[in-house]
């Protein structure tokens, strides 16, 4: 095991090794303060092309703030993110064209139908009318909602709305997709559909950053995983490397997976 791959230190940035991956996303010393509150305390990591990178952590760990800075929604106090070699701080508009964000909340125009929602965002990304229509129909097929494309979104179930929520982020076929807890509150069928969609995207070469509270999701989907707590990344590596670390750091030898490591690292104290 490479020692530099895993790090429990809460005092400084952690760097992934030069392991031959083709790096698409490079996060460097991202720091964000709100008044006296340091929400993210100098986070660094890289994501290779076509990877699904899991960003895990309890509530308030700084995951969403990190995503908000990576996509240009929040201006970092210091640090930067580079996507395909383009700096978010210097060229935010350019970056916004090549990334997609699936927000944690269901952010849809619920009195419009799913085609209208998709086509509206397609317009904002500069797609032609023909492309907008074709891509919207393709994506709706992709997420299994093509037959209900003309129904008002407010009539959809929570799971269906989640799928449209994700579909919107894909309308412009981004190279890099940031997914902030995309499966919150959905039934097993919709969750399975979302997983299938993510796996198909990965197979097409889309790079994904995925945050979740469900460890089994991270185990199933993610090539690399980082665990955040209190604004720091406290552990990072492949699933195998993290599980190996669990076995080395615990006295009780039981193979209970990522969940056990997560609790071991972040503790059992309730987070609000």
């Amino acid at each position, binding site marked *: 095991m490479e020692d530099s791959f895993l790090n429990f230190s809460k005092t400084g940035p952690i760097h992934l090794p030069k392991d031959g991956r083709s790096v698409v996303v490079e996060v460097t010393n991202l720091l964000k303060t709100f*008044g006296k509150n340091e929400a993210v305390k100098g986070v660094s990591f890289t994501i290779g092309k076509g990877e699904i990178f899991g960003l895990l952590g309890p509530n308030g760990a700084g995951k969403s703030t990190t995503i908000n800075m990576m996509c240009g929604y929040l201006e970092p106090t210091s640090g930067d993110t580079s996507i395909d070699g383009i700096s978010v701080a210097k060229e935010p508009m350019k970056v916004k064209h090549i990334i997609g964000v699936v927000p944690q909340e269901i*952010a849809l125009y619920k009195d419009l139908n799913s085609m209208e929602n998709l086509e509206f965002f397609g317009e*904002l990304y500069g797609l032609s009318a023909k492309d907008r229509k074709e891509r919207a129909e393709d994506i709706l097929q992709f997420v299994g909602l093509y037959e209900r494309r003309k129904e008002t979104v407010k009539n959809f179930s929570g799971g269906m709305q989640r799928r449209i929520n994700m579909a919107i982020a894909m309308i412009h076929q981004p190279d890099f997709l940031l997914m902030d807890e995309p499966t919150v509150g959905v039934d097993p069928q919709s969750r399975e559909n979302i997983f299938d969609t993510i796996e198909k995207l990965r197979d097409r070469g889309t790079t994904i950053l995925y945050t979740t509270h469900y460890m089994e999701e991270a185990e199933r989907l993610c090539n690399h995983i980082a665990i955040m707590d209190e604004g720091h990344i406290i552990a990072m590596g492949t699933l195998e490397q993290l599980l190996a670390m669990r076995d080395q750091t615990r006295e009780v030898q039981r193979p209970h997976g990522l969940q056990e490591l997560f609790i071991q690292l972040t503790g059992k104290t309730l987070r609000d």
Partner: protein
Amino acid sequence: MKNFWYIAKKDLLQILRDRTSLFFLLAVPLVLIVVVGFAFGNFLGSGSSQITITVAVSNQDTGSVGKAIVNALQINTDKLKITVDQYNNPNQVTDRVANNSNVNTGVVIPAGTTDKFIAAAQTGTTPKNLVQFYSLPSNNDPRATIVQNIVSGVISSQLAGTTAVGQVYNVCNQPGNHCAQSSIDTQAIATAVGQASATGGPLAVQALTAGKAVSINNFDQIVPGYAVFFALFGISAAAGTILQEKEDGTFRRLLIAPVQKYALLGGKLLSQFVLTLAQLTFFFLFGYFAFHLHIGSLPAVIALIIGVSFAATGLGILLVSVVKTRRQLSAIVPLVVLVSSAIGGAWWPLFIEPQWMQQIAKIGVTAWAMEGLNGVMILGKDFAQVAPDILGLLAYGLICFVIALRLFRFQEKTA
């Protein structure tokens, strides 16, 4: 720049989908305009320029003065119609004035008024407090002033007559003059001189016209006033959609998309501008076809409607930049709109307000709008004359938008 239109188009589509809100956006103001228009039918004359006055008169005098006053009050022209209700008992006159809203003033001519005039003429004195004029306390009704001026005019002419009689007596009493007392008919001399002074003046004046005729239709005030009032209330819808988007998370989604901040606010402004413009146009067209609204200069009215839509929208965006929640917005919008409408002339013509209030009212959109619309539709002003109001409205909207752009919180300052 296309994003401006895409965001506006999406907002308009959402509004069109909400048919119930759209119905109330148009129907409620329409009902109010019709009800208020008919309720205040006589406020500005119901389309007629004739002023109508009812006067209660008790003439106890048997001489020429009493008759002259009653005759002078009985006017019926295309501009002024005075109805004289005569009563024997003076107390009936005061009762009518005090208790009957249709009677505007009362006049009591006591017995012996003519004799007292003549006696005063012979002694060279001026009679005082002979004819009594009644109106309600603190009454600013201009119709009372009209009646008082007519009565005063008659008395002046009668005084001129009796003064002439006095002069005749003086001449006859000079040494060497021989006037037989019986040959001097004082009443005839006084009446002749009085009539000459009463009728000679008006005949000597030639009535001419200059400029365009001003025809005041009650709806010329009610329709634009309430249209502007409800257009301002519509700003809560514009501001509300932004706050709604913030609450729903779609605003964040728009900020993550490649949309410039000014385009985002501009798109919101454009949709509300189009909606307000459509709303105002609908009310004016309705007023024109249903109530024969007097439009005056069409280009000026169109420019003013565009100006009002722009200013109201700018104000809406400004308000949303200073509030955080829809609850705060729903508290502040009525306050701003009601105060602005009350002092800005939405419910009554701005030009009847004191000058200082008209100036203070300019802090609101309504005053600029109503000064221009009253000017064109009631006072017959042309485009150039209301250009300051049009420019004022455009500047108002622009200033609001620039301030809003500086104050607007695109991101919440929390994690």
